[in-house]
């Protein structure tokens, strides 16, 4: 728990670039980084709060649909949100539930990897998304290894302002 990390890559690999999150999770899992637990799922749901609460850091890796190229990395903070009818939750809500239900002070970060094709069924990433995935992987592996999340978030925010980027919903 002291400096343990949970990386959750989420998205639907059957929806082309929507699978960027699970693809990143798969790539990181292969590296077997010490103290880093990797999960992949179609979407975030409330029970991810229990998993997040058991770690010091959690990284939410997802496809992004707009904004700058390659990827962004930024800190996320606990917050609520409304949802009309969905079983999924956002990273902020996962952190809020980890805090409120499990008294956890988990620090959260979002890694949004730019995707381009979401509109059709397909199991392959676009060439551009594949390039962004490689760039994101090169960026995140040393961050995961050295636990330099806050400084990395500051750097990445300088490159790609989160205001320009909307995490793929």
């Amino acid at each position, binding site marked *: 728990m002291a400096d343990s990390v949970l990386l959750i890559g989420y*998205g639907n690999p059957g929806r082309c670039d929507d699978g960027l999150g699970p693809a990143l999770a798969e790539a990181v899992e292969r590296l077997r980084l010490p103290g880093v637990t990797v999960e992949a799922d179609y979407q975030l749901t409330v029970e991810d709060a229990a998993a997040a609460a058991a770690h010091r850091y959690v990284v939410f890796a997802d496809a992004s*649909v707009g904004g700058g190229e390659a990827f962004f990395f930024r800190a996320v903070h606990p917050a609520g949100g409304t949802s009309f009818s*969905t*079983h*999924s939750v956002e990273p902020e809500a996962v952190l809020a539930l980890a805090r409120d*239900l499990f008294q956890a002070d988990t620090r959260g970060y979002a890694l949004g990897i730019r995707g381009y094709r979401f509109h059709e069924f397909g199991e392959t990433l676009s060439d551009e998304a594949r390039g962004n995935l490689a760039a994101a992987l090169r960026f995140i592996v040393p961050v995961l290894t050295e636990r330099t999340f806050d400084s990395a978030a500051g750097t990445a925010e300088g490159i790609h302002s989160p205001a320009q980027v909307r995490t*793929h919903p």
Partner: protein
Amino acid sequence: MGTAAPSTRKIVIDPVTRVEGHGKVTILLDEARKVKQARLHIVEFRGFERFIQGRPFWEVPVLVQRLCGICPVSHHLAAAKAMDRIVGGESLTPTAEKVRRLMHYGQILQSHALHFFHLVSPDLLFGFDADPGVRNVIGVAARHPDLAVQGVMLRKYGQEVIKATAGRKIHGTGAIPGGVNKNLSVAERDGLLKDIEQILTWSRGALAIAKDYTSQHLKELRDFGSFDSNHVSLVRSDGAMDLYHGNLRAIDAAGRRIFDQVDYQRYLDYIAEEVKPWSYMKFPFIKSLGPEQGWYRVGPLARVNACDFIDTPEAEAARKEFMALTGGKPNNITMAYHWARMIEVLHATEKIRLLLHDPDLQGTDLVVKGRRREEAVGLLEAPRGTLFHHYQVDRNDQVVRCNLIVATTNNNTAMNRAVEGVARDYLSGTEITEGLLNRIEVAIRAYDPCLSCATHAMGQMPLTVEILDCDGRLVDRKERGGPGDGR
């Protein structure tokens, strides 16, 4: 449902909604500015047939999980049931059938629990008119943390059952044509048994909340988005509720049988789908009654109404209480879906406990095969209702055609009726008030619609409500829950 006036402007659904994933309600007014019709636009997956065509049939149970991030296990099992028949292996070994059933009950438990605690409990605990900024799962966590923890842990337990039986949470491979690829190890069984009594206690508690709420608010709920309807569900050959396998039964609003014990391989003889120009989603109906009278409801309410009994003792006692409310006749109260859903949570938990004590789960006879077929239907009761998978496979083992009817499609007309009823009762003038918006949300939620057989793009899903006058002019528009909605 009425017919739109010729002067009404044609509704165009922006294709981008498939990815943005929002629910849209259009309320059409007549010349007197009264509600003439309400339409719920839900974005249904399309293009899946192209995706699946040409793929080898044995890949399909894995591929179809990509359809939906919410109920991949239901698609996995429905496809596997169809492929069982393709390989002539529909008479599964005891181990294979029980492992699949365990997986399915885990799916029912996690999905129902999540829906109830995450989406519905805020409405029940805080009231329909509470500030949406509070009326959400974070609000429940702040004010009822014990309840919120129970919701999270019920969901987590269901996911653990799925992981133990399907192999993993994402891209599970447990069910294969003719059987399963693994049994449940002793270690996996013991890991699940450790918590089952606690899960049972929490399931009873969830049922009590839903039952008490419905009973205490009956006067308010009886007419809320409610209407008489037909009900369709699988039942076992002896009439028992069976969520995994059985034959089709349809009853009318008074409980009279429309058809019964229909082999679902012949569903096309009994069910047809109507296309309407304003919706991508089809409108299924019972053929013998036609589209106007033959539409029906599926899901927990339909299942509890349609079955003769439930074969687990606590859920059966709960069913009897439920049916007593309407004198043994079908319950047509839309908000009673939640009570019925929690009866199924208790049933699923009882079933999981029974199965975990069954040594067949550790058996090693996992797969059977028989006479090869080229066409098959797989059907089960998914959390939201009856799920149809229909495939044709050529001699080269490639899928050449598939047709799916998902639960939310089966409930399409009913959800439109519910929204229309709420609009008639709560629209005053031509302004979309908070109260109207809240109640439209609540009515749609009763069906637990899966609006997301697409990407996982649902976290920011807004609800958009528009009012159009008899000339098709936009009178009012409100949106809630989308990006930028700070609440």
